[in-house]
Every structure is written in C-alpha cells, then in structure tokens.
C-alpha cells in the first residue's frame, strides 16, 4: 500500500509538476588540445518549492551545469540535451528569449558578491533595475520595493542602506543584497552557486538565514551548489553528488548522508573532519585526483581512485541504478555491496598521495 502511494507520488512529480527539468544535459568546450567534456549527461527534476543541493569538488561540472540552465555559457560551448522550465524548452533560445526568463522566473546568486554587483551604482538602484527590467512600474515604486527587499534579507536600517555603494558594505551584506536582487521578481527557481564560500562562518550563517527568508517570501525552489556538505545537510531536501561531469548519486539528504551507495560519496564523507565528534580518529582520504575531462577513458571515471574497482568498471560506465529506496539512485556497478558499509571499511586512513589504491575486502570486515 505504501509502496503504491510512493510510486504515485513519484509519477505526479515526474509529469506536470516540476518547475525545472534538466534532461541528459551535456556541455563540451572545444579547445586546441581537444574537447573538454565538462558536463556528461546530467538529468534532474526540481519540484516547486523544493531545495536541491548539488555537491562536488572543483572541476566536477556543478557550476557549468547551472550556467547552461541560465544560458550564460560562451557561444563556443556545445550544449545538447534539454532544459525545460515549466515544460518550456530553454536551450536554443535567443538572448532575448533568455532575458524573459532570467531574473523573473529563474534567478541566480553567484559566489563573489563583489564582482556580481556594479561598483558605480548604489545597491538600491541595482535592485530597482532588476524590478524595472520585468515590471512596468515607476521608479518610486521600484525604490520602495528595494527597501522592502533589503529588510526581508535582514539588512538593518534599509532606508539608509539603500543609498550605499557596494564598497560601503561588508561581504556578508553585499551577498544579502545579491539575494535581494534575486528575489526581486518573485522567481520560481533560485540557483545559488557557492553563495557562502567566500564568507566567514558567522556571516555564512547570516547569509543562509537570508536565503531561507527569501525562499519563504517567494516560495521559490532552490538549487544550492556547494562543496560544503554541512551547508547541504541543513538547507536541502534532496542532494545530487557530481563527479567528472556526471551525477553519481541522487537521493534525499538522509538517504545520501546515512546510506551512501557510491564509493565516491563514502569517500567524501570519510574525508570530512567532524566538529561533532571527539577523538582523533584518522580521516580516510580518497587517494589520487579527479580525471582530466579532456580524454576520459571508457568506464567509470572514479575507477582509478576506487577501492571496489573491478575489470568491468574500466569497460562500462555504470548508469544510475535504483537502490532499495525509490528516488535514491547511485552510479556504481557494486552499489548493492555498499549496504551498511562505513567509509572506514572502504577507504584506508592513508597519508600518502601516490601508490595504488588498496582494494577493499568488505566481506571479511562485515
């Protein structure tokens, strides 16, 4: 009975309800040395009001994916697949076609607020600009709305602050201004690309609070891109793990954090020093580095770093296989062997950077 209703729920969100659907998205950059395959077939669905985290290390393609969604990649990039906003195809639109969507339906928050704000205009004018671009209102109305928005994101004395230039504000405040701009037109989707990476922790907490306030006020769905698993744990419902341009694991935060089924996810969790755990247990790093996206060998790109690697891993790249939970998928041929396995059983607490990966013998340890 429960299984049935689960399936129904799943189908409903799969059919009409998704605000953003990305299907088999690939992005390639031709260079002099060859083609860089930055994104290799990413698919996800975003339900209204949902918060989805995308996590991955530098160069895994998490930013490029969202730049492609927003149509912000340079013309040289070859993009295939499909990106649909409420059923409407976005890929292949003209610049004007994208301008209708950007800011109004899908808004984006970038990592560095100093480069995403214009230094020669007041923050109030920049917020008003976003409002005036999509609404036929007077400047006075736009300005009042700007003050309102600054108050929503928690900036004290918004009436005065609205006349400040970006350099007169601190990093955390600037990022809150960027959030105010993103929510100005009541978008359906907010994409936040490493919104707090450049900030101190106490300021990060303030900015994340402002982001939650923006979501509450607009009811927007959120795509939160970050390398910080802690931020995802507290602010996302579902999580996608990216490695070498592909999604390698997808599920709710609880499924992925407590029952990871892809060795890379386990490796990430085992590499994290924990604030909430005493003792000096050794961390279990993932030996080696991510592959170059230029000449990817066939097979699973994680093979050279994976303790579970078998000959089949070098031959065939695994699809996203379903696990025992609906909606929880993992790209590993041996995901079934990872049930109940901890990072410490799979990876060794090594300090070396070279040398071969020791194959894990899960049977004897279990």
């Amino acid at each position, binding site marked *: 009975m429960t299984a049935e209703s689960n399936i129904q729920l799943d189908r409903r969100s799969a059919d009409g309800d998704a605000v953003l659907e990305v299907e088999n998205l690939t992005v390639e950059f031709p260079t002099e040395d060859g083609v860089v395959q930055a994104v290799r077939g990413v698919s996800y669905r975003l339900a209204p009001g949902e918060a989805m985290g995308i996590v991955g290390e530098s160069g895994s393609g998490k930013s490029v994916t969202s730049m492609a969604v927003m149509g912000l990649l340079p013309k040289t990039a070859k993009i295939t697949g499909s990106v649909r906003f409420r059923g409407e195809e976005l890929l292949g639109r003209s610049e004007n076609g994208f301008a209708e969507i950007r800011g109004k339906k899908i808004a984006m928050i970038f990592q560095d607020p100093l480069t995403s704000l214009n230094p020669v205009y007041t923050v109030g004018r920049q917020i008003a600009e976003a409002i005036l671009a999509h609404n036929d209102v007077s400047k006075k109305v736009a300005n009042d709305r700007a003050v309102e928005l600054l108050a929503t994101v928690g900036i004290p004395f918004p009436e005065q602050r609205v006349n400040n230039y970006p350099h007169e504000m601190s990093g955390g405040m600037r990022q809150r201004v960027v959030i105010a701009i993103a929510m100005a037109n009541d978008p359906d989707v907010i994409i936040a690309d490493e919104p707090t990476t450049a900030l101190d922790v106490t300021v990060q*907490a303030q900015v994340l609070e402002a982001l939650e306030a923006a979501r509450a006020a607009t009811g927007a769905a959120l795509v939160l891109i970050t390398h910080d698993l802690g*931020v995802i744990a507290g602010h996302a419902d579902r999580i996608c793990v990216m490695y070498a341009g592909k999604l390698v694991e997808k599920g709710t935060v*609880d499924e992925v954090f407590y029952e990871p089924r892809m060795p890379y996810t386990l490796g990430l969790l085992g590499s994290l020093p924990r604030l909430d755990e005493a003792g000096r247990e050794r961390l279990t790093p993932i030996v080696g580095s991510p592959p170059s996206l230029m000449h990817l060998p066939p097979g699973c790109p994680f093979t050279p770093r994976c303790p579970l690697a078998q000959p089949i891993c070098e031959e065939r790249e695994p699809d996203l296989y379903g696990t025992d939970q609906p909606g929880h998928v993992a790209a590993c041929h041996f995901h079934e062997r990872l049930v109940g396995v901890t990072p410490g059983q799979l990876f060794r607490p090594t300090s070396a*950077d*070279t040398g071969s990966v020791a194959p894990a013998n899960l049977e004897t340890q279990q």
Partner: protein
Amino acid sequence: MTAPNVAEPAVSTDRQPVLAVHDLVKHFPVRSRGLVRRRVGDVHAVCGLSFDLFENETLGLVGESGCGKTTTGRLLLNLIPATSGEVVYGGRNLVELSPGQMRPLRRDLQIVFQDPFASLDPRMTVNEIVAEPLRIHGLLGSGKQARDKVRELLRMVGLNPEHGNRYPHEFSGGQRQRIGIARALALRPKALVLDEPVSALDVSIQAGVINLLDDLQHELGLSYLFISHDLSVVRHIADRVAVMYLGKIVELADKEELFTRAAHPYTQALISAIPLPDPRKERSRQRITLTGDVPSPVSPPSGCRFRTRCPKFADVLSEDERQKCVNEEPALIDRGQGHASACHYAEAMKLV
C-alpha cells in the same frame, strides 16, 4: 593588558614551551593620502597576546578573517617586526634580533603558507625548491648525498621521488601543498607555523594532507601552530585551541574542553554557526546568530571588544552588568569553567 595568571591546562605544566609569547603587540600604521603621508592612526592587528607552544603539541589558532591570526603567525617567526612584546625561543627574545642573528634560528622555525599556487616558484623544479633551504644553510652536501636528501624528503611527504624534476604546475593543489611541507621540513625544524595549510584544498585531498601532518608530528616530534578558520579541522588536529577576535585571544583551552564547554559567547557563536554534515543533527540544532559585522581594528570598542555583537550583552545582561563590559576589559583568566576565557560573564555551554 595584564594576564599573567593565565591558567594553563594541567597536562602541559610539566612540559617546556618551545615558543613562549608574552604580551605581543603589532600595530600597522594608517597613513594619510598625498605627499606627506602623515600617520593618522593604527590598525590594531594583534593586541597583547600571551600563549605558549609546547613541545610536540598542536596549538590551533582560530578566528575569522581580519582577527590577526596570520599576523600572529608571522610575528612568531619574526617575518614582520613586532611593535612590542616578546617571543622567546631557546632563551632568546626573537623580537629584538637582527635579520642576521635571526638566520641561524630559522632552521628551527619554519612556515607553510596557505596558497600552494603562490608559494612555490614556478620556474624551479621540485628538487630545487626542496633543496633550496638546505643550500642556503650550507647543509645540502653534493652529488648523490644531496640527491638522496631531497628524495627522502619527497618520500616523507608522500610524493613520488621520481617526480622531482617536474615543475610545480604539473602537480595538483594537494601535491603542491606537500611540496611546501617538504620544503619547510628540509632543515628539520622544531616548530612549524601552518597558516591555513588545507583551506585551499578540496575535502578529499585535504584529508590526506591532514593525515600527513599528523604522521610527521609523531615521527619528528614537531610543534605546530595551526592557524585556521575551520573549526572542524582544528577539532581534528589540535591539542589545544586559542580563539581570536579582533587581535585578542578570547578563549584558550584544551580541545575537548573548548568544544564541549565553550565559555565565551564568541566561541559559542562560532561553534554553533558551523554546519554539520549530518542532516538529523543539523535540523535539531539551535543556532546562536551574531548580528552586525566585526568592528574596524583601527578603533576597536572600549572594554570588551566583542560587546558590539555579543548576544549576551544585547539580550541577557542588565544595564549595570553591561557597564562592566563597556568600561573594563575582561582578562583571559579561568572564571570557574576549568579554562581561560576573556568574558566577565563566562558560562560553559555544550553546543555539539
């Protein structure tokens, strides 16, 4: 500032400090624009720090950007001249030494920088980079002996010695940081200042470097001053932790003590602001959010420097109690929590 009665944790009383810091102060002048460039004020970067770094221990120095933790690290090695105060190493006050007198001591005191992309000369091979400190101090030797020394250092930091002829750009960030560590270890130092050594690295790479630092400390008996803004890393690697705010240490304690019984409101806010990679814990956590920003170090607030952002000052204390925060600077002493904290109204709290 007078804080001679800093309560050191019991475990370290019988040990000798490698480095002893007393009342260290560093002010950077702020000059006016134009031709004359009059001195119009001072940035109070480091204001009266006192702490000891013991043998074979890791002291974590944490704080947010601009709190003076990097300046402290450089002052310790006399890389920038201190305004006043003492850094005692081997019975000598480093602050008073000339660069020439300092040079032989630099064998014992080394630093690893944050950015492995900026701290290695791109035009030198890895072998040359690691051999340079040995050559400068006349310890390299020649021929095979020199080569062996360099190979041994590369092996020690977990790199393949065969790769010694490569240039830094051929390595990943984690590998470059290992090269920086090999260079710092070349002269067999006693103490290392690690200035955010893993902050620029991805987590899976960071873990390997943290394990490496751990191993090296055990093998070589090193003392680390581990400067970081990441409390999770500090909890993993440090033995004791000093928390800095606006140029001052606000709390100093054994690691477990600090993370389970934080007494200063700033430490509490800092610990509670760090997101945990654990969805269930994260949902049930209560946060102490700070308002406002760090005040300018050019004119720090009177009395307690944290009072302008302190949640306790704003919400809990009565008007009379607040007067003490405004007028009287809290000393870094034990107020009954078992470790030193610089808050008049310190109260231990468990947050994780």
